[in-house]
Every structure is written in C-alpha cells, then in structure tokens.
C-alpha cells in the first residue's frame, strides 16, 4: 500500500555506498560546489540555521535535565535532592503510568503499575511532598505528561500557590503533546478533538498566568524511538506543531504571542552529523513555516527552542557499559545542533530504572562535554562545513517531502485518527529490526564484536521497594477520608459542566479541583463522561 515509507535511495555501487540512518547517500567527500558555496549566515538571525542566540552557550549553557522519578513522592523527592546536589540545573519529572493514563492507584488497571516507571502523583498532596524543600520559584521543572497534562499543570500551579510562589515566576515545561501519544508512547485518554481543546485551554491559560512556562513541548522523541528516521522524526513533529498552531489560532490565540512559548523535544541517536544537521534543518524549517504560512516576523516567536534526550533505543542491554560512550557521542551531537536542554540516559536504562551510580555518570557525561570538551566555546562550530551544510539541506528537503505526504493524505489529525501514521512507524520499526538482525545496522557488542562466552555484566541492579504500591494505596485512602468532600464534589461538578460545553477554558476549574484535593482519576472520569475515550485504530 502507498502508506509504506520508501526505502533509502537506490544504491548504484553497493560496495561503496554509505548512507545515513535516514537513507541519505553520503558522498566520499563534499566539495564547496556540491554544498552550493554555503553561507549559513549568523546565529540569532533568520532563518536561525546557526542557532537562536548570538552568543550560543556562552550566555547560557544548556540545562542539564535528567528525567527521573519513581515510587512515591517521598522517594522521588530524595532522588531530586540528590541530583540537584550533583549540579543538575533543572528537574524533569517522570510520572507513573496510572497518573499518565488518568487512573487512581486503587483502580484494577493501575495496581500493577504504581510507581514503576515514574512517581505516583494522584493528587496535590503528593505534589506537595514531591517538591518539599525545593523552591518552585527558583527551579525549572519539566513534566513528561500528556493525557493528563492539563491536570498536572493545574496541580503545579496549586503547589506553587501553596508554597507562596507567584505563578508568573514559574518556569518549566509540560509536554502536553497528545498527537504523538496516539502515534507512539500511547498514554492517550480522550478522543483527538477534545484532547486538542484541552491543549489549547492549557496553552492559552498558561500564556496569561505563567508566561515564562512552556505549556507544550512538541515531541518527536517517541516516534523516533518507536522506529522512524531522523528526517521523519522532525517532519512528523513539525506537522504536529502546525496542527497545534492552527488549533490555537482557531481558539483566538495570537500566534506571535503563543509561538514564543512553544518548545520541542527530540531524540538524539548515534549518527553524529545527521543528528546535528537534523536540529539545524528543523530550526530553520520551523522559522520558515511560521513566517511563510502565518506571517510571523517576531524573532522570539520564530525561535525553535528544543530539549533532547540522548540514549533510548540506541542503547542496548548487551555490554551495557558501552552505552556510556554512545550517550557521550549523542550528547556532543545535541550540543552541535544547539539544544537548550539535554537529558542523557544512564547506561542501564536499556533494562531498568537507573541506580544512583549510573544516574551520576549520566550527569557527569554532560558536565564533561560542557566543561572539558570545548564544544560549547563558539557558536555552531560546524557552521560552514561543506558536509554539514550539504547534509542540513538534504535533511530539510527530506522533511518537506514527508510533510507533503502527510498533507496529501489529508493532514496529520486524519492520518492519526485513521492509523495511517501509526502503520508507517510500525513498518519502519520492522525495517530497523531487520537491518539490525542482518548486521546492516551495526550495534557493537550486540550484532558485531559480540563476546558470546562472557556473560554480560549489568552492574548494580535497581530494585523498587515492593512496599511502595501498598504505601501509595494507604496514602490514597487517607486522602479520600480526610479531605473536604463537599468542596471536592462542587469542584468536580463544575468541571464536568464546563467540559460539556465547547467554550469554557477548563484550566481555572482544574486548578480548583486540585486545591480541593480531587484526584487525577476523579477529574479524568468527569471529562470521560463528556467526551468518551479514544478508540485505537489497530492496523497492522
């Protein structure tokens, strides 16, 4: 069928042909003529190929932001304090799946998953504990949260209220990118249309009450890790970004204002130059799209600000210490691409939640790149390289082609509702697995230079306290006994009534629900009554 992505360019000289992971055929050498006598211009100048800041990382180093969280709020609070003590400069909260999918801990679907892949935050009580002793006015916090993003953002505002921190001082990000959840990652709850409404509500509200907070981080990371190429990662993400822009404009938002608070999030995998070129091309293309399609001229609104994660599926369980080297190379690529914040995976994340030991090495990796490698000394050190400028052009061209295919299908929302995009990713994942099995894609220690005789050393094993689930359930039961039930019911009823209309911004009502200590599951249940649930299109 036509939905199957085209493989890379045909190889005329198979023995000599080298392609990037996206399938771009790499010349043996790139000359000035081949690169089109490149002059990428200056940083902080449209179209921002060389970056959005004139002084690069000198004015402001990237934020070292390690995704972390597990168990109950108490355990995660301890881990955060440890990471801050090690010199981490921002927090990134991993939430458990019940919180992400909108179930209270006592729901049968939730019980086996409590605290497993992140921290359980079933109500404001838990968020108060999570940030105990951490001044929300002084730290920027990122939440990888989507299906329940509006609720978690409301909870963060309520937590700031409780700490006495003014909302306009808050900095940080909620991921709040539901479109990619339907394609990969899978923590959707509601159908596409009401989910878009909830995103518009939170972004528009945030622009007013917490103007320094990024209420959305449009993410390509997860589709990338699910199997697609670097070109597709950027293309799908920019397509989703444009869908959000359209929705926000439809809701009356001023694009020059809200575009200043859109941010992005990507994976950095192993091909150093392709990854750096991906970010340079994406940054340029986003600025062009906003300017050409929406007439945006304000520089700050055109700025493509992004965070990255290094690791993910590029890490393997075979000889796991090799992953430290992979992450260091990916970290370099992200810096050469001009990332604003970076999360480096720990070497053991291919198979477990990192231990304190492995988490520390991941932070140290970034500090070595930042303070020893010299890579951050000058802005866009790859700028003007024949190969990198040529590759940046090739990547941009490829991205536009993929975006054109989505447009031709009928747009990204339709492509997702029909399962068309999901199928494209699955086919790509199959191709990648097959190339790995055949050894065409080399993974050192796994399919090449593998030492069969020697058992892999996994180092220290992380074990979640098995009592955590029981403790969370006790706290949840206590909360429900001790709160003002009349206030809870009042706030939930108001939420449900407003959700049933198309016009109310739900954010103030969600903040009140949080202050009343309504639970995530209760809020989601009221919205489900109005909107139903997403029905996953399963197409293989």
């Amino acid at each position, binding site marked *: 069928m036509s939905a199957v992505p085209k493989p890379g360019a045909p190889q005329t000289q198979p023995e000599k042909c080298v392609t990037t992971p996206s399938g771009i055929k790499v010349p043996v050498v790139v000359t000035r003529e081949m690169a089109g006598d490149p002059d990428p211009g200056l940083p902080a100048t449209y179209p921002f190929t060389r970056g959005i800041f004139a002084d690069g990382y000198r004015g402001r180093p990237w934020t070292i932001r390690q995704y972390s969280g597990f168990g109950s709020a108490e355990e995660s609070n301890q881990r955060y304090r440890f990471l801050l003590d090690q010199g981490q400069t921002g927090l990134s909260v991993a939430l458990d*799946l019940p919180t992400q999918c909108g179930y209270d801990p006592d729901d049968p679907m939730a*019980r*086996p998953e409590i605290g497993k*892949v992140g921290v359980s935050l079933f109500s404001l009580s838990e968020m108060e504990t999570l940030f105990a002793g951490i001044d929300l006015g002084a730290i920027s916090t990122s939440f990888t949260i989507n299906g329940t993003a509006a609720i978690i953002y409301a909870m963060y505002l309520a937590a700031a209220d409780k700490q006495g921190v003014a909302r306009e001082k808050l900095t940080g990000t909620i991921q709040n990118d539901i479109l990619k959840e339907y394609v*990969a990652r899978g923590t959707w709850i509601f159908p596409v249309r009401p989910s878009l409404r909830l995103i518009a509500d939170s972004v528009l509200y945030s622009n007013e009450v917490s103007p320094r907070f990024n209420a959305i981080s449009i993410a390509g990371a997860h589709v990338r890790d699910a199997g697609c190429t670097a070109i597709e990662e950027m293309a799908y993400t920019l397509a989703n970004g444009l869908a959000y822009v359209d929705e926000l404009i439809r809701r009356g938002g001023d694009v020059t204002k809200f575009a200043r608070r859109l941010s992005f999030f990507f994976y950095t995998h192993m091909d150093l130059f392709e990854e750096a070129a991906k970010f340079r091309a994406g940054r340029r293309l986003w600025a062009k799209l906003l300017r050409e399609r929406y007439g945006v001229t304000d520089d700050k609104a055109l700025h493509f600000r992004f965070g990255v994660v290094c690791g993910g599926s590029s890490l393997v369980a075979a000889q796991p210490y090799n992953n430290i080297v992979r992450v260091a190379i990916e970290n370099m690529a992200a810096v050469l691409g001009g990332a604003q914040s970076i999360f480096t995976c720990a070497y053991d994340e291919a198979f477990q939640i990192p231990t304190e030991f492995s988490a520390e090495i991941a932070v140290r990796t970034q500090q070595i790149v930042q303070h020893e490698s010299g890579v951050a000394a000058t802005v866009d050190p790859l700028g003007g390289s024949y190969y990198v400028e040529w590759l940046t052009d090739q990547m941009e061209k490829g991205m536009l082609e993929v975006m054109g295919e989505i447009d031709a299908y009928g747009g990204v929302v339709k492509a997702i509702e029909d399962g068309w995009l999901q199928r494209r990713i699955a086919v790509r994942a199959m191709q990648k*697995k*097959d190339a790995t099995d055949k050894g065409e894609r080399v993974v050192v220690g796994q399919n090449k230079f593998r030492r069969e005789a020697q058992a892999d050393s996994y180092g220290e094993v992380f074990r*979640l306290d098995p009592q955590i689930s029981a403790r969370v359930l006790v706290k949840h039961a206590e909360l429900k006994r001790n709160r003002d039930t009349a206030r809870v019911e009042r706030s939930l009823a108001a939420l449900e009534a407003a959700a049933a209309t198309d016009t109310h911004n739900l954010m103030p009502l969600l903040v009140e629900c949080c202050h009343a200590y309504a639970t995530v599951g209760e809020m989601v249940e009221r919205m489900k009554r109005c909107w139903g649930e997403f029905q996953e299109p399963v197409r293989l």
Partner: protein
Amino acid sequence: MSSVVGTRPLAGKRILIAKPGLDGHDSGAKVIALALRDAGAEVIYTGLRKSPEFIVRVALDEDVSAVGLSILSGSHKELAREVLDGLRAAGVGDIPVFVGGTIPPEDAAGLLAAGVKGVFTNDMSLVQMIEQLARVLA
C-alpha cells in the same frame, strides 16, 4: 519484509499478541506481529492497555495457539502471572504464553519458572524468536 519471509514455520497457527497493563510502548509488539505474519501465522493484536481478563477472554474466543505478552513498564511479573492464572482458571492452561519486552535476566528466570514458555528481549533476532516459537508450537 523480514528475513523470516518464505520459510513460514508458523503456518496454520493463530497467535495473540497482547499489551497488558498501561504500558504504551507498542513498537516491539507490532514488529513481532508483523514478523509472525511473515512467518505464516495468523496474528491477532489487541492494541494497548488491556486487562489480563480481557486477554484471557480473547485467547479463548479466538482459540489461539499461543499468547505473546509485550511489557516494557517493569510490571511483567504481576501481569504475566495474572494472565497465566486466568488461562488456567478458564481451563486452557496449556496455551503457551510468551513474554517480550524489557525483562532483566533474573526476572526472565522467574517468569520461566512461573510457567512462561519463552522470554524474548530486544537483542534476540526475529529468526531466533520464531524458531523458538515454532519448536514450542510444533
């Protein structure tokens, strides 16, 4: 197309690929489903976020030869046990259950001891997995 195409060692088998629990990582499940189909099997894929009860019911209704559970959230022990217990309670404890995902080696041993017939992780090739499946289902 994967390297298993053409051999069809699983022709005539009906295999359920299921995502129990709340884990949203479905790339592995879909790759396996596509590979099993290339190997000749008829594949039923549940989609995300299914309860163990639901999975047992589908296994019964569809009269499957095997059940594959894909779990990357760390909840493999609990969820695999619930599916195994459910199949036994329904009188079809002989349907072989396989588990794939992010499974630490020592947990793999525990799953096998609990009655799981095979544990598949990312560093195995599709050919290896299908050969093992074909042996168990022969």
